[in-house]
């Protein structure tokens, strides 16, 4: 094909037609994504602000002004629900901190220091992906019971941290490899110790990977049902997911509108996280080798 002609499209379409088809497909796709992706969230929000008598009676697509209410959110003051949500927040923060600190240090060690069996160690870590929460949870129930971690938030934090650890360590290792070693060496020349070089040079540059690892740990902890169900049998430490399921099976009356109000509150932190952190997040996941 000559370079002066506009390039030809697929199926023999001209370049302009191809562009038009492409734009149309893109628009259609966007609409589908909006409908399928946004709709359940919208519907949840809509139910959450509708009076529950109305919710029980009929399906509405757009809430009418007279049925809109914020009363459903009063369920959050219910001590049981409040406890579940508080526990989830504690567990999520604990898991994020543990995962980030441990994986940063290990990732640095793997990337910058040489020690025997380094590669094999990293490979064995990969096997960690194969452990199902249920496979770990069943024996862990007895182990935690015998060392007194059963029913504690710490026990759950350790379990969840270990689950996102292999991934976080690999991410951090590969990310630190992309940071030129010369940056640290320059700091060493100026008299910085290895620790200071790590703290002041490497860690600030790792921000995208830290956010990506934190997000992964957050998703795991915020989502977790299996471990919490097995490892937290008592009420004061139960997290949101198993707690709300138990509340549903025990409670005589837990209206959908209330459930959706709680769900909406539990959805807002992830939404804000995804909105404000996405560019860092995508940068952190750009690391190609896992």
């Amino acid at each position, binding site marked *: 094909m000559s370079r002066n*002609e506009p390039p030809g499209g697929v199926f023999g379409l001209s370049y302009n037609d191809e562009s038009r088809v492409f734009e149309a497909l893109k628009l259609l796709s966007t609409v589908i994504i909006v409908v399928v992706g946004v709709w359940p969230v919208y519907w949840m929000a809509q139910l959450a602000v509708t009076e529950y008598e109305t919710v029980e009676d009929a399906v509405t697509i757009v809430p009418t002004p007279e049925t809109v209410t914020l009363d459903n959110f009063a369920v959050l003051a219910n001590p049981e629900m409040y406890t579940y949500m508080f526990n989830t927040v504690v567990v999520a923060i604990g898991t994020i901190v543990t995962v980030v600190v441990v994986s940063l*240090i290990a990732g640095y060690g793997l990337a910058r*220091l040489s020690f025997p069996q380094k590669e094999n160690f990293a490979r064995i870590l990969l096997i960690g992906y*194969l*452990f199902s929460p249920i496979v770990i949870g069943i*024996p862990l129930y007895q182990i935690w019971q015998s060392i007194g971690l059963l029913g504690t938030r710490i026990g759950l934090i350790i379990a969840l*941290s270990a689950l996102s650890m292999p991934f976080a360590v690999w991410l951090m290792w590969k990310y630190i490899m992309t940071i030129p070693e*010369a940056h640290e060496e320059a700091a060493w020349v100026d008299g910085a110790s290895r620790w200071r070089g790590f703290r002041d040079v490497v860690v600030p540059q790792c921000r995208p990977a830290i956010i990506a690892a934190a997000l992964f740990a957050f998703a795991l902890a915020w989502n977790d049902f299996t471990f919490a169900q097995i490892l937290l049998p008592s009420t004061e430490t139960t997290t949101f997911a198993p707690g709300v399921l138990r509340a549903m099976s025990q409670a005589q009356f837990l209206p959908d509108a209330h459930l959706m109000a709680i769900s909406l509150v539990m959805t807002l932190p992830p939404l804000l996280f995804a909105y404000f952190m996405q560019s860092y997040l995508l940068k952190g996941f750009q690391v190609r080798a896992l």
Partner: protein
Amino acid sequence: MAGKTGESTRSRRTYVPWDSLPASRETIVGIGTVLPVVALYMLIAVVPIAFAFWASLHDIHTLNPEWEWVGLENYSEVMEIATFWGSLWRGIVYMVGSTLIQLAVGLWMALVLNRITRGQKLLTAVVFTAYLIPTIIVSLVALRVFDPAGGVFQALGAEQFGLWGATEAPLGSREWAMPLLILIGSWKFSVFITIFTLAQLRAIPDRFYEAAKVCGANRWQMFRDITLPRLTGIILVVVLLRSIFMFNKFDIIWQLTQGGPGDATTTLPVLAYKTVYTDQAYGFANAIAVVMFLFLLVSAIAYFTLFNPSEEVETTT
């Protein structure tokens, strides 16, 4: 420039306690950095698996501390019961079905999100939220959506489309439970693939496409020759991860159907859970857990030998 100076600076800083040891300081610090990981890994992976294996050789009632040695009897029993093979098969159906849908949807969403110009950030955030909201919420919403009394699908006319009866709960029907589980799970977990592929797409420099355009390539050729090769590595990795995660999935199945109706959605994790808490057979459940682990280990090794995802990823960097 820093290479030589850096080396000498490093060796000049002599900290005393390390020097008398047989290993070099760097080795010790290096091993020290991974010790926390090793400790966590031992506590949460190696010890439980060893414990599970040991427990699987005993006959244990869940609430009874007395362990009775039975050797490999639990394993031969696992291989004999029909529920095990049925659950393995359903697990494979769930794993393969979910992974294929998630791969297709996840890739498609990533390609679209990468190309739209208006509202990109907001839409990306909303899409990502699906992956980040607790599974229990997805389940609660899904239960409500497919509720025969006032569920949205019923209102939209599932009956008219001849999908299921007016009073029938689709999640409680043998025919619909598994497909719906796959769909609901895919709604949430496709996003995992979107996140990884979108990150890769963002990393492709625009000049590649500009060069291709100058050379007269059409969009399909650009996709085939520029986009796809950059994505192959990460696709191999996420397919492996998603297959493993879906095979191991317990939460969403338990929340939506508890393995029912009958055993129509009982996969291996659900079977193991039921064995512990319904049948009270702790030793037997551990035998199932060990078999699951071995099954995944063998499959993962086979996958690595066939596709070698890590190498693929590295060579395309």
